[in-house]
Structure formats: structure tokens, C-alpha cells
């Protein structure tokens, strides 16, 4: 690393936008992102499919140009950072040739980086040494991801980007992947990973950036983001006495701990941090029946956090 450690941000995006022309008209995949990630940080990019995560990653890697705004990586352009081997990535889709062996794949990419001396070390570290002579097409999804991880480590980058590295893996393969990843994390690298698994952010990142609809909707410590997603959904059918259901809903929305209320025909559902109290109120005061309480799904958390994203400035709290 250079003497600029700690002063130059690993990634700086300034009002970055990316529009694509599609058959259905223009699509703004990234709709104005401003973010700065310091060197040595481990950051999760969390968001549902189609949130703009991969497009953002592609711009940071210089694979695609932003429509407007500027992207700086380690104080320079993405292309220069990539050419200097200072940034590398495990990309979400493809990236491997099925009819090469694992060792051929690593050797080929290593030779392009001028890093053939690192082949043995990197294969050892990502636990693929034993797969050396296996064809890529014969490797499991988890093994292929570890191979891609090995390729990303070849240039010994200062900034490592992982785009949905565990997509499509089963639970065991995911755990193995992150175990391998964790062993590498102490080296002081900046690691940015995109995921739609909340638990991966919890276990691995100090900071989580929540992205939806091409915008950052929350940015803070992972613990803080997590607390926003906490809350159970209580839903129940309410009798519509004298047509004052709307008033009832408004009253529920005022209760302590309730963050979101929604009406679905005769059913009302609310997100709350105190489901017991809400259930009691519903049953006792409002004659509710068919009551259900459900734990938060990530899906709900996203809906909750991203609905009216622009009208929730309190979520825009930054780490610094």
C-alpha cells in the first residue's frame, strides 16, 4: 500500500447516476449515489434484487461508465486502479470458463497479472489446491465461488469487491465461503460486498449501506441498520364498527413501538417492536380476531425501510 493509507478513500462516489435504455423506456438503475468508503473498512451493500448494487459495483470496477457523476477508486480512476492491480472483484455472474481446469484458470489469470508466483499461495488460502486438475464445469457452486475468490486475490488488491459472492449456495457452502473470507480479512484490505442476505452483513460488516431503487436509503453501523429491521408484524381482522376503521388505524399508528401500519381489506397489519402490547390492544380494545404475529423477514424490512425512502432523512445517518 502507499503512504496515502487512511487519507485517500478507497471508494468515493459523487452523485453517480446510470441510465440504461431498455425496450420499455429508460431505466435509471443508479439514481444519484453519494458515498465514501475509507481504507480498511469492511462494508456491506445490502439491497433487494434490482436495487442497483451490481451496476454500482460495475462502475467502481470501470466495467461500465456512469451516465453522470464521478467515481474515484483509491484516489484514481477505476481503470487505473484495476490496471495497477489495486482493486479486484468476485463478480456475481459467470466469469469462469467451463472447460478449463481450476489450476489452468488460476494460472491464466495470474499470468495476466504478472503474479504467477502467487498461484500456490492463493490456491492454498482459498482451499482449492485439491481441486487443481478438476474441470470448472465439474465444480460445485461453492467451489466455483472459491475459485473466483482466488482469482480476485491474485493481484493482492488493496480493495476487494464481492458482488453477491454466495448467491445460489446452500447454507454450508455459504458458511465455508465466509470462513475462508474471514481468514483473509485481517490483512487490512478494504472489503466491500453486495448481498441480499441480512445475516451476512451482520456477521461480517461493521458498516452497512442499504440501497433500494438505485438510491442509498440508509447508511450506518450494521448494528444500527439491524435495529431498524427488527420488529414483528402483527396482523388481525378488525370489525368495521360505524365505519371508524380508519380512526382505529390512526390510533394504532400512535402506539409506542409501532412504526408502520397498513390496511388490507378488513385486515390491518402493523410493524412494531412490542408485538405483545399491540396484540393485547388489538384484542382487548378493538375486538380483533384471527390475529397473527410474524417475525421480521428481510423482505418486510426492505419494504419497511425503503417505503418513502426519501421522506426518512433520519435513516440517512452516516457513520462519520
Amino acid at each position, binding site marked *: 500500500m502507499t503512504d496515502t493509507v487512511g487519507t485517500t478513500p478507497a471508494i468515493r462516489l459523487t452523485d453517480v447516476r446510470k441510465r440504461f435504455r431498455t425496450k420499455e423506456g429508460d431505466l435509471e438503475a443508479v439514481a444519484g449515489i453519494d458515498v465514501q468508503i475509507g481504507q480498511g473498512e469492511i462494508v456491506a451493500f445490502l439491497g433487494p434484487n434490482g436495487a442497483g448494487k451490481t451496476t454500482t459495483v460495475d462502475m467502481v470496477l470501470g466495467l461500465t461508465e456512469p451516465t453522470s457523476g464521478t467515481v474515484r477508486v483509491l484516489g484514481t480512476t477505476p481503470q487505473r486502479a484495476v490496471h495497477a492491480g489495486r482493486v479486484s472483484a468476485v*463478480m456475481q455472474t459467470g466469469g*469462469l470458463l467451463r472447460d478449463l481446469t481450476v489450476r489452468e484458470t488460476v494460472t491464466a489469470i495470474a499470468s*495476466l497479472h504478472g503474479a504467477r508466483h502467487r498461484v500456490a499461495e492463493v490456491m492454498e488460502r482459498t482451499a482449492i489446491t485439491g481441486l487443481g486438475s478438476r474441470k470448472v464445469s465439474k465444480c460445485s457452486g461453492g467451489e466455483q465461488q472459491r475459485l473466483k475468490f482466488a482469482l480476485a486475490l491474485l493481484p493482492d488488491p488493496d480493495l476487494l469487491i464481492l458482488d453477491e459472492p454466495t448467491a445460489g449456495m446452500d447454507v454450508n457452502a455459504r458458511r465455508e465461503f465466509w470462513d475462508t473470507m474471514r481468514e483473509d480479512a485481517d490483512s487490512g484490505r478494504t472489503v466491500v460486498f453486495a448481498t441480499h442476505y441480512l445475516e451476512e452483513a451482520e456477521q461480517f460488516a461493521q458498516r452497512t449501506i442499504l440501497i433500494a431503487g438505485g438510491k442509498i436509503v440508509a447508511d450506518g453501523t450494521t448494528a444500527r441498520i439491524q435495529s431498524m429491521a427488527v420488529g414483528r408484524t402483527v396482523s388481525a381482522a378488525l370489525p368495521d364498527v360505524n365505519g371508524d376503521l380508519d380512526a382505529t388505524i390512526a390510533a394504532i399508528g400512535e402506539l409506542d413501538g409501532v412504526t408502520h401500519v397498513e390496511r388490507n381489506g378488513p385486515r390491518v397489519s402493523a410493524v412494531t417492536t412490542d408485538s405483545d402490547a399491540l396484540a393485547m390492544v388489538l384484542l382487548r380494545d378493538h375486538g380483533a380476531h384471527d390475529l397473527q404475529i410474524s417475525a421480521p423477514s428481510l423482505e418486510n424490512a426492505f419494504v419497511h425501510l425503503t417505503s418513502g425512502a426519501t421522506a426518512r432523512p433520519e435513516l440517512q445517518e452516516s457513520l462519520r
Partner: protein
Amino acid sequence: MTATYMAIDLTRQLRDVGNIMFVFLLPLLMYLVFGVSMSVASNPIGDANVGFFVMSSMAAYGAALAATSSTGTAAMEQMQGWGRQVALTPVRPVQLVLGKVGVALAVTFVALAIVHLGGLLTGARAPLGLWAATVGITLAGASMFALYGFAVAQLFKSESALGVATGVLVLMSFVGNVFMPLEGWMLEASRFTPMYGFVGLVRWPLMQGFQVMAPADPDPLWLLLANVGAWTLIFGVLAVVGVRRGRNRQ
């Protein structure tokens, strides 16, 4: 681009036995059917014989086919996202294209050797120097079709890219004065097609631009070079543009 990378790419292509056998044996078969069986095969033509003329023409087609097939595999690489992986290395698009062309020429050399060896064993005759010059020109000229195959692969990015590229190559060979000597307006139009310049140069050591069917109207060397130069430039630009485009998600 590195020798290691190219060696791995070459090994990978040679492992695809079905495709490689087709590429290696089809031109030889065509020469054996159309060249050896001709009653005039041993008649003299310049310093060589008709058998050599037909063989060198089929070898030119074979070389173009081998080069196109080799770089045409880039379509499958793109589909698998390999272009994005390579884009994360210091290799620049031009280097990538040149590396692919280098591998293609190695494959082409084998294909050429097979046809020429077949010719030698079945009565094609020419002075050694003329023979060597013909092989050298064919190999060098084939790089233009390596660029062509690469460009088609980048533009079509599907499994059918290779079929399209080699299919169009057969058509270009028919209209390019390769398989059978053309005359009249067909010959005039032919002069603008990529195969025409290539095969004209391949035949230059023997024919010096003279046409079998139009002896009164020989091609000047500059016309053949201009043809090859222009098409090489076109295919080359398309190839490099294709690499840049291929870095986006598929």
C-alpha cells in the same frame, strides 16, 4: 497478453476434438475431392501444377476457417462472462485481440500443414521457394480472418456465432474467387470481398495476379494489398470495439 495465457488457451481449443477435427480435415477433404480427382491435376501452371493451385486455394480456405473457428470461440467465452474476468486484469482490449490472433495462427498453422502435406503426397508440385512463400503468405493473411471471427463472436455473443462466422466464410469463399475461378461481372464484384484479396495474395507467388478465366486482366499487387488492408482494418476495429462492449453484463 502472456505466453502462458496463450498456451492455456491453445490447449483448451485443441481439447475440443470434434470441432478441431472438422477444421483440420474439411479443407483436406475438399482438396482430395476437387483437386486430386481432376484429370488436369498434373498439368503445368506456371512453375507448378494445377494440383498445387487447387491445393493452395483449399488451404487458403482452410486457413481462414481455422483462424475464424479459433477466435470464434471467444463468443462462448463472452457468454460465460470471461471477458469481465479478464477486464479486471491489466490486459488491454488490443492486447487481448492480438493474443487471440496469435493462438488462432498456431491453430491455423496446423491446419495449413495438414492440407499441404496431403498435397505433397497426392501430386501437387511446385518449386520449394514458391511453396514456402505460399505457406507464409497464407498464414500471415489468415490473421485477418482471426479478427473476423473475433468480431463476429463479439457481435453475436451466442452459440450460433461460430456457425454464422464459418457459414458466411463459405459464402465469401464462393464469391471471393476461391473455390472456382470467376469471370465477367462476378469477378468485378468479387474484387471487393475479403476472400478475394487474401486468395489473390496466396496465389501471387504462382500467378502474379493473373486470373485463370481472365488472363487479359491481371490484378495489380496494390489492389490485393488494399483489399486485405481495408478488411483487416474493418475487422480489427470491430474486434476491439466488441471487447469493450463485452465488458458490460450479458
